């Protein structure tokens, strides 16, 4: 596997699958803990093929999430683009980190994206949670990152 092997099919299919994982109905007890799969997959591509997937792609994925969630266009896109930029600044270091350290940084990045999205959602007049429970997905996403990265490596190797 070359470090920057990239196919548009691999990218789109993984994002689509992640979108489905984000939308599938769960028992209400589990709902607050669902990881943000689309964001994880996006970070994976930002991290490992930075030559192709960058700030603009992140913004487009954000727009897709806005459309899926029925939000005002631009709410998720802004946060995703910001996060994309941060990953760009960090990717060289992040790639050599041990996996758990990687996971911690990615958790923080996702939390940052959630802060920005939540602020904009509030401004757009949608209801947002006031409790810290809102940030559970950042933690669960960090925990699931190693599995996710591993599966994505395999998926890229298949193509």
């Amino acid at each position, binding site marked *: 596997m070359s470090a920057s092997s990239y196919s548009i099919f691999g990218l789109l299919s993984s994002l689509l699958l992640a979108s489905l994982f984000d939308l599938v109905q769960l028992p209400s007890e589990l709902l607050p803990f669902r990881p943000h799969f689309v964001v994880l997959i996006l970070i994976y591509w930002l991290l490992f093929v930075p030559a192709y997937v*960058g700030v603009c792609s992140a913004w487009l994925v954000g727009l897709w999430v806005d459309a899926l969630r029925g939000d005002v266009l631009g709410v998720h896109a802004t946060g995703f683009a910001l996060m994309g930029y941060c990953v760009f600044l960090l990717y060289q270091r992040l790639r050599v980190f041990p996996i758990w350290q990687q996971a911690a940084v990615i958790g923080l990045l996702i939390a940052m994206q959630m802060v920005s999205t939540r602020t904009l959602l509030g401004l757009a007049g949608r209801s947002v949670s006031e409790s810290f429970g809102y940030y559970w997905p950042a933690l669960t996403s960090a925990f699931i990152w190693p599995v996710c990265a591993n599966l994505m490596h395999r998926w890229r190797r298949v193509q």
Partner: protein
Amino acid sequence: MRNSLPGYRLLMMMILSATLLVLRERAFMQEVRFALGYIVDPVLYIADWPQQLLIWRQEHWVTRDTLQKNNATLRQEVLLLSRHVEKMAALITENERLRALLHSSERLSEKVVIAEIIGVDADPYRHEMILDQGKNVGIQEGQTVLDADGLIGQVIHVNARTSRALLVTDPVHAVPIQINDKGIRGIAVGSGLLDKLYLTDVPNTADIQIGDLLVSSDIGGRFPFGYPVAKVTLVNHDAGKPFARVEAQPLSKLDRIRHVLILMREQSDLALDVEPSE
């Protein structure tokens, strides 16, 4: 030089986002969102497949015994309901005659569409659900969503084949209500919990009791009059505060429903349906 490029891109994207957010109410932005809906709808349907499978399993792997039992209870219910309908027919004609005598406007007859819930919002703090009917059957923003027990929300976004409804319990939702037999008016605001609504600005002297039925009111022109919304569960008169603290519980089990009714009223009717006051 090469490293500064993403910085400029970020700036460009931020400007683009800001433009989108500022122009969000424009007609052409609504059209863009509607066009995106054509791609989004299939994904929403596919995301519901696991749930469909679960339901299919529940419906098909049933013992003969349970089916017979269900059948018997349903028969009884039909009998009871048809008795109500018989009485209703007489009441409706009588009501219409009286309204004609009072010269008040005729009530619009309302068409309903049955929709299935194919998803709930991924964010547990947002009480929104995705319905499997959209513009193709004439659903519009602002239409009222009901279930068998009463009013549960309104449509806030319409795609070609799906639509999104906001539940009465969402913290940003408010529904004008009236206490059924007493005529006290108020506003029921969502609490963020599926079994609680708050009644705001109820005077301490208002005659509200636990168990009072709240029905929707057509003040504001958004909702039709007379659909049950909630039952009062708590009334707390605090002499030191100008308003009483009143809580109510929605009549429908909002986490259990699978099918809803959408009241088809044209957007133009929504504003005109307010009756002249005495």
